[in-house]
Structure formats: C-alpha cells, structure tokens
C-alpha cells in the first residue's frame, strides 16, 4: 500500500499489493481537447515556434534596444519571467519548459540538413560537464551582474543556440540535452518533485510488446535509415523509466508507442527520490556521483544565488577583501562559492553521514551514504529556487507590459499605447507568504524523502538515521528563511561599496 502511495507509475508488475486496487492515475493526455492537442504530432513545434520568435526578439532587443535592464525584453523576460514561470510550471505540472525549448526547434531544423555522425564519447556520458556549467553560470551571473546587462543576456542566448547547434550537429541523439544543458539539468532535477511524469499506462502491455519503438522509434518498412517517428533520444526505455530524471517531455515516446500506452501521469511529487531502483538511461541514483554533485550545486547553489542579492553579502565581501587584501571581485566571489558549494556541504553532509553510521548503525561507507541521502535535499533546494525566482516573477509580473509597449513604440507601431512604467507586479504582502509557503513545502518534502530513506536503511532505528538529515534540512531551511527576510540589495558588483 505504501508503495502504491509513493508512485502509481513505478510499481513492480510481478508483485501484488495487499490493499485495495489502485485507482488509475490522472492522465493529462486523456483530458479532452488538451490531451488531443498534446497528442498531435506537431504539438511541440506549435509551442516552440512562439518561443523561438520571442527568443529572436529578445536577442535583437538585447543587442540593439535600451541598455537599461528593466526596459529591455532580453533582461526582463530572462531574469524575471522565464525563470519564474519555469519553476512554477515545474511545481504545478512538470518539465514542460524542456518540451517548449526553442533551441531544440533550431536544432531539429538543422538536422534536416546536417546528420551527425559521431556518438558522444563514453567517458563524457555523465553530468560532470553540466555540473561544471551549472556552477559556472551561477558564478558568472554574480561576476558580470548578468541581470543588469541586456547585451550580455542576449549574447548568452546566442551562445546557447550556437552551442546546441555545434554539439548536436556533430553528435547523435540528444547529446546537448542529456549531457551539457545546464538549464535542462536544473529542470530534470526540479521535475523530480513535479506532480506529473511521462510514464507507462499499463505495464502488462509493455511486457507483451517487443517492438521497443518507444526508444528505437519507428522506421520505414525495409529501411532502418528512414525514421518515421523518433524514439527517446535520451535513452529512456519506457518500461524501465522511473520518474522525470533526463525526461524532456518531448513526447517522442508517446508518438512512437504502437499501443498508445504512454501518458503524462500524476504521481506523488518527490516520490521518485524515496526509492532507488535501476532507472533506464540513468542507472541507480545512489551510484551516480555526478547526479549527486548536480544535486549539491542545485541545493546549495540555490542559497548562494539568493545570498548574492541581499545586503549582508556586501559585509561578508568587504570583510574578506580586507582580511585577504584582495581587491578584485573574482577571487572574493570564488572564495564565497567555495564556502557555499564545497565547505558548507562537506561539513553538513559529512557530519550527517558520520552520525548516521555511528548512531543508526547504517553500514554504508560515508560517500555512498551522502550520495544516497543528498537527494532528500532536492525538495528544499527547489523550494529555495521557487521562493527566489517566484519573488522576482510575482513582484515584477506586469513589467512585461510596459516593456512590450516600449518595444512596439520604438519600432513605430505603438498599438498598445505609451509604456505604463508604473505597472510592476504583486505587492509584497501577497508575495512574502508565498515565499514562506514554498520553503515550507520544500522542507516538508525533504523531510518526507529523508524519512523514507531512513526507514529503509534502519528498520530498528529509523529515527536515528532520519535525525541527522532532518537536521541538515533544518539548517538549510533556517538559512533560507533568513535569506528571504533580508532586505533585497541588488548591486551590480559585489566589490561596490
């Protein structure tokens, strides 16, 4: 029964449950109209085209438009609306932003003419490059104050397009999505706490199916070279797929399945973090040091990213600068990142692992233990991203209106009138409780995951195995609460003042 509660889509078909029969999960693809729209072969293209057009507008406005960040489409859409909408959609539904990714539209168009010949080197088939890029983006964001520069923001978008075209022009399958894209990795990890996942409706149907079309795709009769429908480019074989890790919601598997047996199904958010089965295309999470490192950057980076926008960071920075006689930004920032992404996790997770081993008697050595339990931090980390990006999104919700008015007026087509710059967003008395709510939700999710793991590891003393990790969650939660109560202090350079 507990297993049924955890995840309706990942049960073992060979085992029977003692409790009442499971109710079939909600299936988004069976919702009238919306389901049919999503099932349409070109549904993904339909949402990618407007986003591609918006991306082009952002690039042009970023390079040629106003240099003041709040008046430019590139910065407003990237740093206010895109990030906020992304985390809210992940919270409420799933990884639909990867589905709508405009970079993939450009890449698919390119692949009509260029057919990659190489496979991604085996040694690089992991997340280490993506982890490094994710941390680098967080670092560069602070170092160059990306939020304040439309020009740099536009070039980042251009760089993204260029990188995906080069990588996926040379290497087969969805190499960029699976191994490189830092936004994608963020989405993969965050979507582990989403309520929807692409999954198999009836496992018995898969047991009787031998086509493997969901991963192979469908080919023209008599020719393996002519692809009628792509299968999963991220190597996720539906019968063995567990959760949302590495799933871009592209729905290729849905279109490829000859039995119409794949849906977008509801599940308990974060349930996939409470178990550790072998996952198709991913393996065991407990054996993936790279995904654990990604999780570490995701969770501790959430705090670092928020810390960069509150007043106390300048006190710390000034103190470090004075103490070490360093007057350049990069080394001071590097030191702060080292503290947040290396020292702090090493101390917190190391102590928790040591207590779990000695007090609860869990026999795993310290590193596998940390890797196993680090996933319990994902909901809390996501809660911090939600609180942070949700704050910018909600308090700046309407700013897109005057910016769009400004763009249209600048090109001599003022159909929406003169810009109403006073349109901003929701008041703080609405947004602040939501921020706390996101953090509490994340904390609750993290505790739930930690408890399930502890119960499995120490049947006799689950509380002993749970307590150290709950304490880590609590420390991070307190840090997050402290951060959202600080006065915001957006400065373009950390060394200023």
């Amino acid at each position: 029964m507990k297993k049924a509660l955890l995840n309706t889509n990942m049960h073992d078909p060979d085992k029977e449950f003692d409790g009442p029969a499971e109710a079939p999960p909600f299936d988004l693809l069976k919702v009238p109209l919306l389901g049919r729209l999503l099932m349409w072969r070109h549904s993904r293209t339909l949402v990618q085209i407007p986003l591609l057009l918006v991306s082009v507008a952002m690039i042009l406005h970023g390079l040629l438009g106003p240099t003041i960040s709040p008046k430019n489409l590139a910065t407003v859409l990237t740093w206010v609306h895109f990030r906020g909408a992304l985390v809210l959609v992940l919270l409420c539904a799933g990884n639909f932003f990867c589905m709508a990714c405009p970079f993939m539209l450009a890449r698919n168009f390119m692949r009509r003419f260029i057919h990659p010949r190489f496979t991604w080197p085996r040694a690089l088939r992991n997340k280490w490059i993506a982890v490094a890029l994710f941390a680098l983006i967080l670092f560069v964001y602070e170092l160059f104050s990306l939020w304040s520069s439309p020009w740099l923001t536009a070039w980042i978008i251009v760089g993204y397009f260029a990188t995906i075209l080069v990588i996926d022009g040379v290497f087969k399958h969805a190499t960029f999505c699976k191994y490189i894209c830092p936004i994608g990795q963020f989405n993969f990890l965050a979507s582990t706490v989403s309520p929807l996942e692409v999954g198999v409706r009836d496992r018995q149907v898969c047991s009787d199916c031998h086509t493997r079309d969901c991963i192979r795709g469908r080919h023209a009769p008599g020719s393996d070279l002519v692809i009628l429908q792509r299968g999963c480019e991220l190597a996720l074989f539906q019968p063995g797929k567990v959760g949302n890790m590495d799933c871009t919601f592209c729905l290729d598997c849905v279109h490829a399945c000859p039995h119409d047996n794949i849906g977008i199904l509801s599940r308990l958010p974060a349930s996939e973090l409470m178990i550790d089965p072998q996952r198709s295309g991913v393996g065991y999470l407990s054996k993936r040091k790279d995904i654990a490192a990604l999780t570490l950057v995701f969770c501790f980076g959430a705090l670092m990213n928020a810390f960069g926008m509150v007043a106390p960071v300048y006190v710390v920075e000034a103190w470090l600068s004075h103490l070490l006689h360093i007057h350049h930004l990069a080394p001071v920032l590097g030191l702060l990142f080292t503290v947040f992404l290396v020292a702090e996790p090493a101390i917190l997770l190391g102590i928790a692992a040591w207590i779990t081993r000695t007090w609860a008697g869990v026999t795993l050595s310290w590193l596998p233990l940390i890797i196993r339990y680090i996933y319990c931090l994902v909901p809390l980390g996501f809660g911090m991203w939600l609180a942070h990006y949700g704050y910018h999104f909600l308090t700046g919700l309407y700013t897109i209106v005057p910016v769009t008015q400004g763009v249209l007026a600048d090109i001599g087509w003022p159909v929406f009138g003169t810009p109403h710059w006073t349109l901003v967003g929701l008041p703080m008395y609405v947004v602040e409780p939501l921020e706390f709510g996101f953090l509490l939700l994340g904390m609750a999710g993290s505790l739930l995951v930690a408890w399930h793991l502890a119960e499995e590891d120490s049947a006799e003393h689950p509380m002993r195995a749970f307590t150290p990790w709950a304490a880590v969650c609590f420390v991070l939660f307190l840090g997050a609460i402290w951060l959202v109560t600080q006065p915001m202090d957006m400065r373009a350079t950390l060394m200023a003042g």
Partner: protein
Amino acid sequence: MQEMISPQPVRVGQATIAIQLADASAKPVTHAKISVEGDMSHPGMSPIFATATETSPGMYTAQLDFNMGGDWVVLSHIALADGRKLERRIDVSGVESNQ
C-alpha cells in the same frame, strides 16, 4: 550640464537630485521641464519618478524616494524651452539599505 545627488552615500529613502543646466557660454538654461526616473539595475523592480522644479535660474532639483538598496540608474528627461529634448543617465551604485 551638471548633476549631483545628495546625501552621499545614498541610502534608502529620500535623496535630492540637483541638475544645473547651462549653455555653451555658461549662461543658465531656464524654463526647462525635467522629469527624473530611477530604475534598479535588476529588472522587475518598481521604478521611481519625480518632477524637478527650478529653484534658481538654471538650477533644478527633484526628490527621489529610493525604495530599495542596490544599484540604481537615474534618468533625467529634459525638455528645453525651445522644444529640444535631452536625456541624461547617472548610475547610482550601492544605495545602502537602512537595516
């Protein structure tokens, strides 16, 4: 054209923007209409606005209420009496929070 902002360092709260307009022969430029706008360096924040008044020939002052710590960009939109328009930008870095 010269601009000054006080007090220094700028803190969250009221600040005075003083703008002195003079022509090439240092003669004060009078009867200009000046509106002042403050934007944070981060998008999505509330902008602030004020209208400058001419306190002496060629000298205009406006009160801006900086409502948040951080980096601001202050834009002065100037409409001269002869119809010409100018825009001037001042970067106000590191407005300090009061807490």
